[in-house]
């Protein structure tokens, strides 16, 4: 039940000059939910998998379709904030239960693990797919792990299909190009908020049709 014209919500993305609010319709969330099981299947996540999503509430517009997608695919999900204070929770989850994927790991979470003196390997070593955001990706790779790239290109979620590979957005929904090294996004289907080569906080190059963020830049 939805009030006429009411949106799903007002989310937030990182633009190149700071956080930007975006209105999100129920239709676009529905479409992305429908596509999400397929996107997750490419990571090997499906029935019987368990996935931990590391995200902030302001990012729910980006994460919620993936979470529902995981549920629709028959996976179990867990949630933690993606900040320093939640590092202990993330470590607790992977210590207590086996996870097939942990998606959305941020540099702040790794800072938290550093503060707790917990090695990244202890937390993520047994996880088949670790989706790490720019800044965290490099640190996990340096620790000998094989993370997948996980990039919030503004409102669009880009995920690497294999460790080391570029991160891909849903190409039915988004077109990505560069302005210099700034990743810009354009929506291809109707949305409550229109994106027309909208500049995001991500600095990257494009390779193999996907995003390879510049090392050391972190939205």
């Amino acid at each position, binding site marked *: 039940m939805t*009030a006429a014209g009411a949106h799903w919500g007002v989310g937030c993305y990182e633009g190149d000059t700071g956080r930007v*609010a975006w209105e999100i319709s129920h239709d676009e969330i529905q479409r992305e939910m429908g596509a999400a099981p397929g996107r997750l299947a490419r990571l090997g996540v499906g029935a019987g998998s368990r996935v931990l999503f590391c995200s902030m*509430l302001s990012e729910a517009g980006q994460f*919620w379709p993936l*979470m529902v997608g995981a549920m629709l695919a028959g996976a*179990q999900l867990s*949630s933690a*904030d993606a900040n320093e204070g939640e590092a202990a929770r993330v470590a607790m989850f992977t210590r207590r239960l086996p996870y097939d994927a942990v998606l959305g790991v941020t540099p702040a979470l790794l800072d938290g693990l550093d503060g707790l003196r917990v090695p990244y390997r202890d937390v993520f070593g047994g996880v088949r797919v670790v989706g790490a955001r720019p800044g965290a990706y490099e640190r996990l790779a340096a620790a000998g792990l094989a993370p997948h790239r996980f990039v919030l290109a503004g409102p669009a979620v880009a995920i690497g299909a294999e460790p080391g590979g570029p991160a891909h957005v849903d190409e039915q929904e988004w077109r990505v190009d560069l302005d210099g090294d700034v990743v810009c996004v354009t929506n291809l289907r109707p949305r409550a908020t229109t994106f027309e080569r909208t500049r995001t906080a991500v600095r990257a190059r494009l390779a193999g049709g996907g995003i390879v963020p510049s090392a050391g830049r972190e939205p």
Partner: protein
Amino acid sequence: MNLPPADSPYFSPAEETMPRERIEELQLELLLEMLPHAYEHAPVIRAAWEAAGVTPRDVRTVDDFRERVPFVDKDALRRFRDERGDPFGGLCAVPPAELTAVNSTSGTTGDPTLVPEQWGAGGRPAVITRDFWGMGVRPGDHVALVLFTFRGPVYGLFQGLGTVPVLFDFDPAEMPRLCELSLRYRPRALYNFGSVLVHAVRDACERRGLDPADVFSSYRAVVYAGEPLGPRARALAQEWGVELFEHTGVGDVTAAFECHAHDGLHFWEDTALVECVEPDGRTPVPDGARGELVATTLFNRVAPLVRYRSDDIVRVTRAPCRCGRTHARMWPIGRKGDEVVVQGRPVLPVDVWGAVESVDACAMGLFQVIRPGPQADRLRLRVGYAPAWDGRLGTVGDEVRAAVEAATGIVPDVELVPDAALLRLGPPHKIPRVAPR
């Protein structure tokens, strides 16, 4: 979802105002369904009952329940988890493969424990929906949500009510955005606020030349939780014309919210059977007296907590409320495990809170009571101060000692640390208020 008329003060009038006898009949009915399920399927409950020599057949009335059924507490769940290697502490009462989600408790009082969930299993009464409807939220309204994600997608409840969530991180750094978007979307309610965020809003408005009264002019309700809101934050909110509603969890079983009467926090008794007992015993305390909250779920068949000792010290009354609702109300006071007896006097964080906050340098109200054990010779406090006071710590220390002595009759030992050092210890509305050293 069937909605009542917009001018109805209640979301579910029949349930919210049902006569006490009917509440009690319903509770017994739900309890007698829940107990055999918990006993059969939740190993930690089964173990506790077997140790006590009780079976569901021994419970026919609520009195039987009170007399015979053993308590469980967080330590029992942790012990079961560690000894049996069961990640859910023996509480998961459905096959783990059938779970939708595994979330976790806040973990303020130690390692978070896992919370098994099955979404869409049905039967969940409209907790939160009833409360926010009562506060004046209606379909089509915007609602500002300032929350953590560890409890799962709480925004779904607001979308289910036809409202539009405006999403924020629980982080003081988000408050400039909260102010800006409050002016743009004019939300009807804010869930969830806290002292640290109140001060951050004040700072954001000062920096941007905004009038907080304008920022909050559309809000019918601002809900806060996690900790008592100190007198300073309360005074600011009042100045801004904000109507505050306190909110708390009820023994990891359900939730409680203030209503417009602001005379205690309602919990919905069709979701939980709540008892209030002597903190060190099993005798019920009289209506309105201080005791430990013990909760039993009446709807959660996935993680059926039965007679769960919450460690929360509260007062509970079953007297009807001025708002017309008949469900019980509670007043949170503190945590049993936080109490330290100093020179024969029990001290809880809430007892020194106002005193600490009354000192200008400590206006954020960030402090910890040092509790090496249940008893201590001295009251030791670690208190945060704002950076501007760096050169005047002698004065700050004197002021804190004087204020705490006035409030408790005990002169404390005070260790001053920068606010930032305490904020690093946890999410800002819930830094651990008690530390072992």
